């Protein structure tokens, strides 16, 4: 069983990293969002410093939405989704392997980029560490929410915007506690641990719910 899951993970990673796989698009989009903010708010360094964590989170969240609609749709179009149903692994675990591959190819580069982009916003070292930690926990959860949305929209053409609209409301708690934890690390009014643990709890919830709900949606879509 683990060999089958490893095979799915490896194949999806290869597909994402090959030409046309779209792994680099998210990073460029993230860069674009973060770069245009100072143009909009002006060269006010204290202000950028204050809103920097929020800007990084919004950028990473929006960049994480890219490509989610292709997670299952591509497999549906070429017929390989049928074969996942025939594999000797539970469909929910196969879906989780696909989500993990998607996150490693598209989400992990965002996390790596975040501290570098944070420097451009004048964020100090302490909150760079905090915002990176919250993104490590939060962005995979966005992918796992997207797994469900991608499964719901699997048979729909051009479903990118629909998937984004489905994911964003569910991702709002992640955004709230992600930014709150970063603010806590900077201001010290409340301990960093409290909102961070809530962020972890919400992420864990979606790690479980996402694959199970996606498998149910895929089963329903076949009929």
């Amino acid at each position: 069983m683990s060999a089958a899951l490893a095979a799915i993970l490896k194949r999806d990673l290869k597909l994402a990293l090959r030409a046309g796989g779209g792994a680099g698009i998210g990073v460029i989009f993230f860069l674009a969002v973060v770069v245009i903010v100072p143009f909009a708010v002006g060269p006010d360094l204290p202000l950028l410093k204050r809103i920097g964590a929020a800007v990084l989170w919004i950028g990473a969240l929006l960049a994480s939405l890219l490509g989610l609609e292709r997670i299952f749709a591509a497999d549906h179009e070429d017929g390989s989704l049928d074969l996942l149903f025939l594999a000797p692994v539970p469909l929910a675990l196969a879906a989780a392997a696909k989500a993990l591959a998607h996150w490693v190819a598209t989400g992990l580069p965002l996390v790596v980029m975040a501290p570098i982009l944070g420097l451009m916003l004048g964020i100090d070292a302490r909150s760079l560490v905090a915002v990176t930690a919250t993104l490590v926990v939060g962005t995979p959860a966005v992918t796992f929410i997207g797994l469900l949305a991608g499964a719901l929209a699997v048979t729909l053409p051009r479903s990118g915007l629909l998937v984004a609209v489905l994911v964003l409301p569910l991702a709002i708690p992640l955004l709230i506690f992600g930014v709150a934890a970063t603010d806590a690390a900077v201001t010290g009014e409340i301990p960093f641990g409290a909102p961070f643990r809530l962020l972890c709890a919400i992420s864990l919830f979606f790690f479980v719910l996402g694959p199970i709900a996606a498998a149910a949606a895929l089963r329903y879509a076949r009929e």
Partner: protein
Amino acid sequence: MRLLAEGLGSARGGRTLFQGLSFALGAGDSLVVVGPNGSGKTTLLRLIAGLLPPTAGRIILADSEDPVAESVHFVGHLDALKGALTLGENLAFYKSLFGGGGDAVDETLGRMGIGTLAMLPAEVLSAGQRRRAALARLLVSHRPIWLLDEPANALDADGQILLARLMQEHRGRGGIVIAATHARLDLPAAREISLAGAA
């Protein structure tokens, strides 16, 4: 191992495609499903694989521990190849996904007459070459029941002879072959189900 269908019925989009369909297949048997376009040949194959729920009846695999879904190979209209991966990578993926032992990837590609293409991305292959690659899936992992939807599509004369030989060997090993087709398939002593079309 015996594959039993009892009173199968299916309706798609409010139309009854077939009902009361029963058959029993044992080791080495084969079944050819014929009928006009839209009569439900593909639907029947998907039903047997468990990819669609039947509206009536059931599919049972007697004398076997494994569920039906893990005992079948399904080769449908779509070749299920990833264009960005090489032919070899595509086949190696299915070998590890399905597990269960089987022939080596290189050897199988050679046998299917596409051995020299193993390093090419699947997107540059012709329809016939893609079909050969899809059929190669049957060999890289062993499963007792083959569900083939128009397997001879896009195959040249040599390819059709090769397909006939593969099906014959599989039946010789005690496997079951169920094929939906318009074209004549070289399947000796195969049983036939004729689907009449929508009632």
